[in-house]
Structure formats: C-alpha cells, structure tokens
C-alpha cells in the first residue's frame, strides 16, 4: 500500500487538470497575443481560468494576474508594492515564520534600504495581533502575513491583523501568502481587508509552474517582469495558457462541494491525531495540538506536524519511505555537525530533541482513510525499533 501524505509539498494533478493542460498544449495551443483565430481560442481559456479563480475569491477578474507560482507572486507582491509606495514610507512588517519566498524577499528589501519588522510567534506558531499593533508606525507601508503556516498548519489571525493595520492607517497594504490556505478555506480578500494574495497551482491539484497574485484595484504596485506587455503590462511573458487553464480547473474542483471536502480533511486529521494520541512520547505541534480538546481552532484541515523525540526526523522519513509512506521532515537535510533545523519550529521555541524529530504529514481531499490507518500502523511498528538505536 502507498500513502502519499506530503500534499503540502505538492499534489497529484487531477485528471481534469491534466486533460485541459494537454488540450491547450497540443490542440488549442495558440498564443493569446496572436491576432488570429488560434490566439482567440487560447485567450478564451485564459479568460475562463481568470473568471473561475476570481469567483472563488469574490473579486474582479481583472485583479487576477497569473504568475509562475507562489514564489513569484510573493516576490512581486512585496517588491512591487514596496517600490511603488516607497515615498509613503520605508517600513515593512512580516512574521518570523513566513515561507522563504517572503523571508528572502524581505531580506532583499532590507538590502535596498527598507526596514523590516519580523513579528514573533507563540508556541503554536501564531502571531499575537498585539505585537502587530505595537510594530505599526507612521513609516509602515506594508504588512505581509501568511494565511496558514506551511510547516505546522497554524492559521494566522489575518483578518484581525488586516483590520488593525487599516485602522492604524488605511493606506497600509496587506499581503497574505495563501499558498497553503487557498482551497482549504473560503477566503474573501475584500471582506478581510487583503490587498495582495498569493496562490500556487500545484498545491491544489493543479500544475506546477503556475500561480497567481490577486492585486486589489486601488493597490499601487510596480511590475517585476518586464517585456511584451501581457496581462496589462503588469506581468509580461507569453501567457502560460496550459498552466492557467489547469489552475482554473483545479480551483473550480477545489471549491466544488467545498464544505464536504474540508470536512473530509478535518475528519482525516482528527482520526490521525487520535491515532497519534495513542502512541507514547509523540507531541503534536502547532494549533493542532489542541484539536482534540478545543476543535474550534485546530489549524489548517490538512496539516499535522508531530515530534517523535528519540527518532531523527530524516530517519523516520526514510523509514516510512521504505513502506511507501511519503512525508516531509522539518529540516531538509542534516548531518551530525550542522543541523539546519526548521526556522519555524525554532521560532516556536521547540527544545532541541523536538526540533530534530519533527515530521509533517499533509493530506488532501483525496487522501483515503486507509492511507491514514496504514500510516498509523506503520508508525506504531517503526517507532519502538527506531528509538532503540540512537546516537549517544
């Protein structure tokens, strides 16, 4: 049996996605910039995809810009907005647990002369809105806060944070990296005060190499990719029609029977957490650790991060891999000398033995209960054996 429990890394593309990708590559393969019939046909796919995506967010189609993925969307949102609004101030605020696409970009902006405040998080990886309140200053032009943390699944108080920022100064722009949240939550940027929102296609059963940035209609932002003037000159480069069409199909699927799907993920997560609770010496991280006692806020429906002290995460990952169970370890790789552990877990203040032994399991609406049970069974078998052999 195989259990793919790494859906926060990437997902299998749906058949309907693959079909439309193939179709727009081999049959209706035109370039929307061409004036002839072929171009018009291709443009229709682009328009449909944009319309689909816009509907899921209840925003205007014209505010959706396709990008090469979540990373580009984050880069563009931050750099584009910071440069366009530089005259209003040079202070940016983000959290210390953002994805590298945001953190690295913030570092770059620091090199360009901006001042950046990184908000701390609590033991669950959540930002305290009070900290944001204290960080706001007259120079602040942008706040960037991820919707759901990719490593531990903790949901950030985005709506409240946006409200605080806008209350302080309505001109402050609010960006959210919604890569792990889109398709898992109903997100309405206008209602929540979000000006910029990044999404990636392949996390929602769409293709890799496509994503989008929502840019609110009053938002001043500079383009990052210059060239042939596609997408109103805001994001040049030949339109990725297969990618956009695939993303459109995936977004439509994600928000069809949405409640049923998220409920399904939540029940899988609950089942998995109950299984982990039966095991000795296992510690669930993030908001999910309260899931069984306080289910009202247990983090994203599809992510469980758990620590197995005594077993290095990489070893557990490979041991599970031998049984066709695929997960992620907090740390990409490690040797006994320098252990580049997860910055997120570190920010959450985890002690060393937990830092080194944390693994992420991530589900999708298509994960089966059998996969969950299989994984639990294998964990139950593996842990005692793995704990017996340790580095002293």
């Amino acid at each position, binding site marked *: 049996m195989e259990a793919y429990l790494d859906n926060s890394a990437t997902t299998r593309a749906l058949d309907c996605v693959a079909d439309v990708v193939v179709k727009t590559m081999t049959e209706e393969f035109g370039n929307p910039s061409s004036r002839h019939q072929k171009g018009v046909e291709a443009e229709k796919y682009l328009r449909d995809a944009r319309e689909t995506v816009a509907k899921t967010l209840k925003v205007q189609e014209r505010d959706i810009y396709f990008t090469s993925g979540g990373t580009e969307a984050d880069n563009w949102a931050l750099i584009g907005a910071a440069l366009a609004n530089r005259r209003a101030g040079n202070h940016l605020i983000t959290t210390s647990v953002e994805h590298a696409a945001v953190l690295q970009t913030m570092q770059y902006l620091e090199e360009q002369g901006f001042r950046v405040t990184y908000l701390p998080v609590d033991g669950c990886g959540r930002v305290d809105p009070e900290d944001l309140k204290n960080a706001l200053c007259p120079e602040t032009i942008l706040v960037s806060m991820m919707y759901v943390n990719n490593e531990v699944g903790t949901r950030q108080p985005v709506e409240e944070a946006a409200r605080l920022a806008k209350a302080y100064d309505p001109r402050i722009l609010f960006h959210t990296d919604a890569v792990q949240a889109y398709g898992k939550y109903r997100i309405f940027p206008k209602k929540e005060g979000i000006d910029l929102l990044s999404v990636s296609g392949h996390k929602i059963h769409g293709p890799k190499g496509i994503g989008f940035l929502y840019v609110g209609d009053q938002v001043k932002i500079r383009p990052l990719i210059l060239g042939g003037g596609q997408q109103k000159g805001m994001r040049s480069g030949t339109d990725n029609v297969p990618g956009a069409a695939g993303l459109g199909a995936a977004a439509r699927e994600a928000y069809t029977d949405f409640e049923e799907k998220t409920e399904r993920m939540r029940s899988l997560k609950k089942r998995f957490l109950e299984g982990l609770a039966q095991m000795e010496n296992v510690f669930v991280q993030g908001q999910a650790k309260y899931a069984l006692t306080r289910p009202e806020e247990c983090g994203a429906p599809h992510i469980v991060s758990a620590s197995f002290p005594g077993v290095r995460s*990489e*070893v*557990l*990952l*490979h*041991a*599970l*891999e*031998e049984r066709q169970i695929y997960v992620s370890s907090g740390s990409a*790789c*490690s*040797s*006994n000398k*320098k252990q*580049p552990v997860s910055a997120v877990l570190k920010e959450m203040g985890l002690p060393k033995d937990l830092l080194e032994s944390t693994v992420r399991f991530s589900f999708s609406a298509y994960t089966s209960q059998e996969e969950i049970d299989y994984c639990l069974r294998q964990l139950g078998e593996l842990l005692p054996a793995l704990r017996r*052999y*340790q*580095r*002293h």
Partner: protein
Amino acid sequence: MTFKTFLIKYGEIGIKGKNRYLFEEALVRQIRHALKAVEGEFDVRREQGRIYVDCLSEYDFDETAEALTRVFGIVGVCPVVVTEDTGFEDLARVVIDYVRQMYPDLNQTFKVDSRRARKNYPLASMELNAALGERILDAFPDMRVDVHTPQILLSVEIREKIYLYSRVIPGAGGMPVGTNGKAMLLLSGGIDSPVAGYMIAKRGVKIDAVYFHAPPYTSERAKQKVVDLARIVSRYSGPIMLHVVNFTDIQLYIYDQCPHEELTIIMRRYMMRIAEHFAKESGSLGLITGESIGQVASQTMQSLAATNEVCTMPVYRPLIGFDKQEIVDVSLKIGAYETSIQPFEDCCTIFVAKHPVTKPNVNVIRRSETKLAEKIDALVQTAVETAEKIWIE
C-alpha cells in the same frame, strides 16, 4: 587558428623498456575512451614512438583538449600543424603564417627547435633552426632570438610529414589506467575517498568501488551522491563497478552487541572485510581508502592498525600524509568538491559515539567482536549477496 591534429606527449611510459608498447597501447585505449564522450570523429594513431589524435570532423577545441588533459599518462597535449614536405620555401611560409596567427603580439623572444627524424631531409637540425630563425626575424623585425629561455619555443619535426607546434597544454601526468592492475576503493560521500581513488587511478590502476549505505538512516539521495562521485572519478579512471552494500543490519547488530565507543572501529573492520571480499571476487590487488593519519577518531595510528589487521590485501592510503586543505585542493581540481560537500548523512556518522575510542587495543576489539559470533557471518553473507552493482562510466 584551427588545428586538425593533436600531438600527445607522454612522459614516464617512455622509460618502461620492453613494456613500453603495453603502456602505449593502454594510453591509446584510454585516449579513445576519453574521446568517446566528445562530439566529433577522431582517429588515434601511434607512429614512430608518438601518439597523434587526428580530428576527422568538426570538433570543439576546448572540449577536446579538456578531455585529453584528463587522461592519465599524458604529460602534454600539443595542437599541431601538419604539412607535406614540399621544400624549404613552402615550409618557411607555413612557419611564418603560423607565428603570425598564434602570436599577434610579435614583441616576443623565440627559439626554433627542429628535429630531423627523417634523415634524408636536406638540412640538418641545426641548419634548419638557423634557416627558419632567419626567416622569422626577416618577417617580424620585432621578434628576438633567445636560445635559453624563449617565450615561444617553436618545435618543427621532420617526419614523413612535417609537424609544427609551440603550445603545450599540460596533461594530467601519471600512467595510463589499465597498466597497473585493479584496486577496490572504499567510497563514501565525503571529500577524501574520491580523491584517494583519483590518486591511485593516476598511477595506472583500474578502480572498482564499494559503498556502504544504511537505509533508513542514510537516504536515497546520499546514495545518488556517491554514484555522482563515482562518475566524477570515472572521468579520470575509466569505468567503475560500484558495489552498493546494505549495511544497516550489520550496524544495528554491532550496536546491540558491542560497546558503543567501539562501534565505529568494529564497523570499519567489517567494511574492510566486505570490501576485500569484493576485491578478491573481481580480481583486485588491493584496497584504497581516503584515510589520513589523525583526521578523525577512526584514523589514528591505533585505529588504522585495528582496521588494517582484518585484511590480507595491501591497503593503499594515498592521502595518509595529507592535510585536509591539501585534500580539498585536489578535490576542487578534479571537480568533486561541490558534490562531496552536499550535506547528507553518512553511514559512518549515524551512530557515532560522543567519545569513540581513539586508541583502540586490538585485543579488546577482537574480544568485543566475539560477541557477534552468533549472527554476524550470516549478516555479512546477506549483505554481500544482496549488494547492488552499478556500472558507472
């Protein structure tokens, strides 16, 4: 300037007496092998104690020269102009044309060094030197002769045809692989072992390799890294048979039965035994390790003695007196460094004790090993039988 031929200069093998032809044949074979990976059609020929590479089609000069300079046994690669002997006047024209194209900055010193291998050529070597030198001085008044340390040493060889060259691209040196038997390299994912393999291959030794992996403690990527390193070494050594041994059960058994501080030493003793098994099986005459005295706990004199005593074959340790930086320098030179420093866990470090023994007593180690008597033979047998063999070229 485009060249159609390379003259291959080789050093040490010229002095190997009656075995010379064996060495030359091996060198030709290695050159052909190296050129297989280069786009273009090449002919490698041996002629009057010389090896020439003729380029029969379009080819990329840099790519070809780079491939040739990696072949052990080659001291220098000289791009040559080959011309028919149609009289001295024609030769002088070719020489002047060559100098003009190769050295646009004419304000240099030179020396003509001719060799009359075909004795019926009308001018003796000294006469030819003088005559060509005069023509060059006439054509390029800014040039000067310097017979002791010329900036340009222009070689003219009179054979069936006439060969003209001045540029010598330094080669890898050493001896052609295949002239000195075969050895089994204990290859890990680190910096040292690929360098050790390179250095022994440089002496003409064919290389096979053995890698110990320990899933799930070491990853598939760690194994891929070793395959990549073997491929880098094989660019110099020629094809390598890589034996990938699953070492996990042996390691865990030692962990269960023996004192933890001795784990690494005992583990390495079993690695040596298994490596020697494969060495014997494939006709290797020795083992190669990347050990260097005192570098880590398992490489002290005492530790080396303890791991050495389990094999009967000679163990070659070409890095034994090297400092780390010296090893790194070679690693960089052969293009292995970047791959070597990828951070994947190695099977030697996964259970390493905080304070491993640094001065193991062989008798104590032997006694500890008796605790393994019950199962170890079967485990080693299984490890040997299930080893994966990967042909790398």
